[in-house]
């Protein structure tokens, strides 16, 4: 999947849980889910579940541990898509 498309799909998902609209607007690979987007940790679970549904992949616990920012999320999604 094209990286831009992947990023825009991810942006749509995190938009529902972000409490910082400016950070969301300027979302890029260095954006941190909790520090920048102010997503609360209970909603990080929703981000993971939404990503699983959107891309039809399974995110194991080890991958979830690292899913703290956009670049890690993209890398995990790309890896899981390749494994399909």
């Amino acid at each position, binding site marked *: 999947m094209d990286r831009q498309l992947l990023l825009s799909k991810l942006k749509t998902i995190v938009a529902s849980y972000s409490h910082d609209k400016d950070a969301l607007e300027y979302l890029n690979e260095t954006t941190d889910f909790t520090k920048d987007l102010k997503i609360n940790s209970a909603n990080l*679970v929703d981000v993971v579940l939404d990503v699983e549904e959107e891309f039809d992949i399974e995110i194991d616990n080890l991958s979830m*541990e690292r899913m703290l920012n956009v670049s890690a999320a993209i890398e995990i999604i790309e890896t899981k898509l390749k494994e399909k």
Partner: protein
Amino acid sequence: MIGNDIVDLYQADADSNWRRKGYLQKVFTMEEQQLIQTSSNPCQMVWLLWSMKEAVYKIHSRKKNWQAFAPGKLCCTEVKISGQCASGVVTCQRVRYFTQSSLCPDFIHTIAGESFPVEAARIRISSYDPSDLSYRNTAPATVSHHGRYLALAYL
């Protein structure tokens, strides 16, 4: 070292649907899921266990310089509820921590420490005003805010 966590139950209900498919499995161990399923108040149990994990994560992440989103690695055991008070043990990477929680109709607050009983701490819970950061000058040992509430603990 101590850590605390407050859950505004109204905010949690508005923001999170823990009944969604797959949610509990991502966050809770089998034993914890059992506690939730058999509880007479599953919603309270979900947020009690959650606040125990969060409070302990605050200590463990600072002590071990460990940053991860791994709620399943913080395992709650020995959870005892008596009226409005709860206690429990949370183990993370083989380190045991102890928690004491207050169960109120509107919020749950947990304080965690490295020994039992948890180090004597003065706890102050007030309404949270994001524009008022004056509490930072009072040097709290641990801070948590969620929804309508600000919880500070002092040693």
